[in-house]
């Protein structure tokens, strides 16, 4: 448990070492004009083999690290790779334009859709502008405004979730963070448009849920979705955020655990070694999956779809029901 100071990405070290050797050999081959391609091919094979081993047994905490990797493709990368002819629509028509949520019209697989995507930014400047992916109330209100537009004009909604959580600050509270999130959740539960959501990185609590009450909720293999951050959970349990790795296991926040609990509908596989190693391939996989899922939900009559969505959320939860006969009547 004393891994507070250990590098949580240690698990990737063997892979990085092999990759370094491959790079060295390639450079040698170029400069010395000596053919070592057989050796390089062998190393590639070994690298793949190691990656398969390592990535098939990641801990929850290791997955959280991958979900947060700054090199992992984000919403804007996917907009470039997957969504064609993107037409961004800004603003919530009430307060401002939150850069932590991007909304706009675009096409995928010949279908017109509305995209709502949480954005963390890549450069320091972008990341500051996006508050590191933590939206303010105006971001959530913007998302809802545009979803209403989609509802009115019959477009399906695709949302990409990637946030550590809704922004915890003075302005956010002054502008009603909780009330606005609640409103989004309620409105999405009955929105008369198909909704497909994918958690592409971090699915941080209410700030994530506020854009993913959906007909289908998918999650990438190395993403997570949780009621609280592992650090927050560890602080509460042990008053020590260094125990986050233990908390991550307890919270069952990994894709396959979420599938077992009935929280997500599908886990989308990532390229070998994670999305950050091959963003292009990740984009192809995600695009194919989005088209497949949209084909399924977009043909269901809207009344039935909304009813199905209601029933889906209505039945989530685990509890026991004790026979009424065994209970003493309570009155106050």
């Amino acid at each position, binding site marked *: 448990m004393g891994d507070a100071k250990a590098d949580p990405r240690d698990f990737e070290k063997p892979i990085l070492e092999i990759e370094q050797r491959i790079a060295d050999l390639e450079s040698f081959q170029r400069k010395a004009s000596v053919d070592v391609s057989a050796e390089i091919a062998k190393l590639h094979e070994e690298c793949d083999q190691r990656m398969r081993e390592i990535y098939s047994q990641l801990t929850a905490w290791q997955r959280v690290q991958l979900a947060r990797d700054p090199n992992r493709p984000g919403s804007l990368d996917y907009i470039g790779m997957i969504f064609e002819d993107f037409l961004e629509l800004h603003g919530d028509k009430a307060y401002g334009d939150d850069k932590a949520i991007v909304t706009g019209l675009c096409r995928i697989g010949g279908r017109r859709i509305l995209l709502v995507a949480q954005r963390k930014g890549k450069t320091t400047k972008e990341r500051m502008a996006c508050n590191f992916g933590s939206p303010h109330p105006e971001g959530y209100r913007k998302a809802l405004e545009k979803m209403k537009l989609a509802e009115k004009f019959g477009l399906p909604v695709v949302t990409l979730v990637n946030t550590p959580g809704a922004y915890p600050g003075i302005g956010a*509270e002054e502008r009603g963070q909780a009330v606005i999130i*609640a409103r989004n959740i309620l409105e999405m539960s009955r929105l008369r448009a198909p909704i497909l959501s994918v958690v592409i990185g971090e699915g941080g609590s209410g700030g994530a849920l506020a854009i993913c009450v959906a007909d289908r909720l998918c999650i990438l293999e190395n993403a997570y979705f949780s009621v609280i951050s592992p650090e927050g959970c560890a602080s509460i*349990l042990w008053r020590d955020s260094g125990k986050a790795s233990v908390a991550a296991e307890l919270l069952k926040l990994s894709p396959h655990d979420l599938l077992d609990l009935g929280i997500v509908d599908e886990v989308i596989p990532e390229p070998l070694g994670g999305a950050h190693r091959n963003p292009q391939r990740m984009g192809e996989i995600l695009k194919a999956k989005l088209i497949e899922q949209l084909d399924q939900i977009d043909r269901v009559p809207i009344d039935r779809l909304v009813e199905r969505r*209601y029933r889906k959320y209505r039945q989530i939860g685990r*509890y026991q029901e004790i026979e009424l006969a065994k209970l003493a009547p309570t009155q106050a």
Partner: protein
Amino acid sequence: MAFEKIRNLLGRKKSLPGGLWMKCPDCIGMIYRKEMEERKLVCPACNYHFTMTPQERIHLLLDEESFTRMWSNLEPVDALNFEGVTSYKQKLEAAQKETGERDAVWAGVGRLEGRPLVFGLTDSRFMMGSMGSVVGETIARAFEFATERRLPVVFVSGSGGGARMYEGALSLMQMAKSSATIARFQEAGGLYISVLTNPTMAGVMASFAALGDVLVAEPKALIGFTGPRVIEQTIRQELPKGFQTSEFLLEHGFVDLIVERPKLRREVARLIEYLT
């Protein structure tokens, strides 16, 4: 007097220490207990509203003997097998022993100044009133019942804990579940009055508690999304005085009215008279 009666009937549950005098946690003044009880557990010096037990809350708002509890047969389970310093099972057992309740929610039918309604509350003494599967399911059933019977709903929230960590994403999804049933209830024309009491935070305030057709708050309650300590740690500055109080929410336009406890029953009744 009435409080005494209820307390003797049901057993005093933790919220107030014994003795003739007690200390107000807000103004630190000494209060003569009897005077405070006559004022419905409100500090006579500073207007601080003490936590009420479910029994006291029901007595405050509903007609005498009119409340019948429903759905109290739901028992929480440890779906995640959550083993921390103390496990979820231990946490539940401790809270159950302390309160005599299965979970943090009460709901049922009753009358308020003669008008039938569905009434519910979260009990902030039970794991900080946090919402797990039992709380979410009970709220969903209460709103479905109210939709079928065309009854108004009055729900009193007191939840510092938000979505209950120990049930992981299952708790988070109770936000969607409760909100979805409220959407249907309101679409069918139902009136939902949400009463916010100290404290109502995080996943509870970001779902069912915020979704009333009318939001009523008790004075000086802590209401918001992120807890003040977490905000302070994030922004590294002190929070302004009165931040995230009922008065702060009123000023920023997020609650309809603040009502002091002695007037709460009458004001809720007036709302129902106007809107049904």
